């Protein structure tokens, strides 16, 4: 079987031959010119025939160009020393040299990948588990109530979530979790509590737990939709075969979800470099080594300096974008391999 390019060439050849046969041209060269003219005319005719649709698309195109592509001109500042004061000065690759030789940058890069990917795996896994559990619930009112309850945290802003958990996890006398641990004699009742959000060993587990609490409910939506589409005959057949409830989950439900799980993972993998808000509201200087991500690093370099160099921030942002772009391509490739079509 020939490639798409070869097929198109063959079609073109046939159309050129047809032009000669119908007497519109005397030679092959002349026929090819006529074919090109017809093709161009067909293109504009298509536009004209569908002008309503194209007119409707125009505002969207303008919106995208202005809001997404116009700002991209700012990329040039990655090669400038650009402060709020004075004209930008060309510095070549100096900002990149500084970036690659800065320890804090590499820490933030590593943290971005680690926190994002593990968070993705954990929230996906818990979402699947909860979705399967909800699917097995027979009491409809209980199922609906539980669904509503676990969806709610998703709609809370990260600032509110951070305030709630900071109070609960506070090491001072008012911290609820430390109070319980002291009451249960798990930690020294007379000692200071665990500083969960300022302790390098605790920060990441707490971060993942908060993310699971906040996002698991919402994550179940897509899996519940898939589960509702499973053919009931499969369960009936399993019943006839004498399968237990757990066996039905393992041999019917989970395989049915596998394709969706992979799609969710692939689609979210492309977004791993964008982590910001959840970290920003929960981290502090004591845990930068385990919590600082590229976006928070950019934020600090830009906005905690009275006179920041936007050029450096842009260079870090550009690097982040290139890695993000690479991940999009990777996910597109993975998507093609697994489900036969890409995500782009």
């Amino acid at each position: 079987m020939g490639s798409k390019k070869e097929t198109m060439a063959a079609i073109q050849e046939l159309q050129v031959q047809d032009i000669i046969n119908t007497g519109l041209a005397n030679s092959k060269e002349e026929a090819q010119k006529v074919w090109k003219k017809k093709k161009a005319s067909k293109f504009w005719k298509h536009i004209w025939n569908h002008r309503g649709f194209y007119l409707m698309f125009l505002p969207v195109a303008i919106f995208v160009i202005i809001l997404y592509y116009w700002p991209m001109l700012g990329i040039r500042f990655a090669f400038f020393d650009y402060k709020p004061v004075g004209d930008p000065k060309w510095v070549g690759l100096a900002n990149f040299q500084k970036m690659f030789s800065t320890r804090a940058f590499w820490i933030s890069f590593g943290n971005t990948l680690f926190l994002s990917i593990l968070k993705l795996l954990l929230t996906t896994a818990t979402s699947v588990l909860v979705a399967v559990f909800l699917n097995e619930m027979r009491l409809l009112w209980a199922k609906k109530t539980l669904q509503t309850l676990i969806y709610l945290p998703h709609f809370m802003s990260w600032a509110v979530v951070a305030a709630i958990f900071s109070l609960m996890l506070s090491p001072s006398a008012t911290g609820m979790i430390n109070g319980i641990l002291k009451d249960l004699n798990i930690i020294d009742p007379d000692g200071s509590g665990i500083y969960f959000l300022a302790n390098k060993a605790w920060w990441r587990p707490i971060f993942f737990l908060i993310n699971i609490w906040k996002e698991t409910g919402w994550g179940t939506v897509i899996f519940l939709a898939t589960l509702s589409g499973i053919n009931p005959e499969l369960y009936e057949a399993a019943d006839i075969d004498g399968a237990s409830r757990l066996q039905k989950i393992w041999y019917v439900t989970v395989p049915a979800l596998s394709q969706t799980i992979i799609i969710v993972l692939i689609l979210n993998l492309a977004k791993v470099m964008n982590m910001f808000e959840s970290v920003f509201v929960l981290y502090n200087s004591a845990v930068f080594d385990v919590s600082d991500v590229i976006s928070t690093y950019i934020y600090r370099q830009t906005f905690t300096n009275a006179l920041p160099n936007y050029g450096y921030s842009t260079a870090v942002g550009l690097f982040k974008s290139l890695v993000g772009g690479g991940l999009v391509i990777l996910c597109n490739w993975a998507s093609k391999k697994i489900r036969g079509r890409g995500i782009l």
Partner: protein
Amino acid sequence: MKKRLVAILLAVATTMSLVACNGGTPSSEVVSGQTGSETTKEYDLTSIKMVVDGTLTANLDNRQDAFVEQWQEAIKEKTGKDVALNINQLDHSGYVDAVGRLFAGGDYPDVMIMPASMFAQYANTGLLWDMTEAYDNAEFQSRIEKPEINESLKRDGKLYGFSPAYGNGCVTYVKKAWLDKVGMNASDIKTYDDYYKMLLAFTNEDPDGNGKNDTYGTDAAGFLKADEAPYINYLPEFWQDAYPAIYQNDQGQWVDGFQEEATKKALERLQKAYKDGVIDPAALTDSTKTAREKFFSNDQAGSSGSFAYWAGTWYQTLTDNLIKNEVDSELVMLEPIKEVGSYINREAPVWVIIDDGDGDNSREQAIFDTFIDTMLDGGKIQVLWTYGAEDVHWSTKAESFVLNAGTDKEKSYEYKDGEFHLKQSPNDENTLWKKNAMDPALVISPLVGDYAGFTNTSELAAQGNIFFVQHCKDAHPSPVSDVLTENNGTIIDAKNAVISKVVVEGGDIDAALADYKAAVGSIIDQALEDLNSK
């Protein structure tokens, strides 16, 4: 391949819209919000765009509209011109960040307030208008009583920022009821050992009387305010003679105080205090607001007995809140312990005018004349900046009102016609209004004429100011260095890392300081070389 290219472009576009959406308005393109053509003779000023932090207490919740309206009327009366005052009041605790975001968006005000450390970085950049001549010729010159305040702000003989008041600073407040409960007197706290014993007593002897071991000796928003000069004023007893920043020593040499022995000793004290539980363990992550509210919260579990905070008006405010929350009726200002010697008078925040860079000073001069010169007119406009709007924040009309009516803290006020007095706060009828942007006790030029008798009736605020003036010394001036400016964020991170490792994690001080040196030592050395070569 096309799809891959599209993928890359999409990803880049999405992310870059976050980090590089500035269209690129360098300072040379900064334009003013005024309309009308600029001439070298007279500029037709029609509006002033002002950016300010929380020091303007007549905020949106406290009838800022009345302040603006009366300011505009007073300016019209004084200059005969209609000038609209447009205030953009930014979050106080995140002011530097917020200003950075404004500038990143190319949104430059006409006039703004800058904290000292921010001013040090901007002073020589060309963004700020050189107001030396305007200042020297200002109408208020004949009334200025403390010319040294603005003289000290000059860089190479040029004045880029104006301060109408001196800086103020923090003093240590102690709850009197807690002192009584643990059987101590503030007058007996003379040394660090005395102070530490007091903190231990507050921590271990249940001073709030709830039967639980849930109180602390002291609290602060962070152990070191690495991004805000003078850095150490929220825990002065622990930092003592240390100054963990670049400063000029007695020999005139610029040195890094963070690497000095005094800082090491301070870190040892903080480490021990944290381990002993006398500092609220959440201090590292507490914001200023959180630490303040814990201090006067009606639930004293988790509160502390001493708290270093701003002198003057805040003495009144903290006391009012303690009374309102039925915690205590008296706060004691602790005299500086022997090892501290004096509290620190910070470098004053300054008002700056943004230079549009067109080489014509008429616009900037007009802003100076209208905004800054009138600020200390000794009359109506100075009263507006000092106390707020007439009949909203203060009045001279006969009236009577009651604070905390129906409680045992009830207090009545009665004033005769013509008697200057502050009114109830617009946003809290149980609190007396205290001041607006300028503290009457700190201002460098007095009210005169009919307004000379307008004095702050808050006794505590006045006492606080007198106490502070008697017990303060000036802070080290902030260094001006491109190297420091370029690497400020990295240096702050490195300092915070040391504090966390030593105080919270109880790590080795020498190792933590070695890490600091490894991380930013070369930057610091370069900055010191730069500063000492000038």
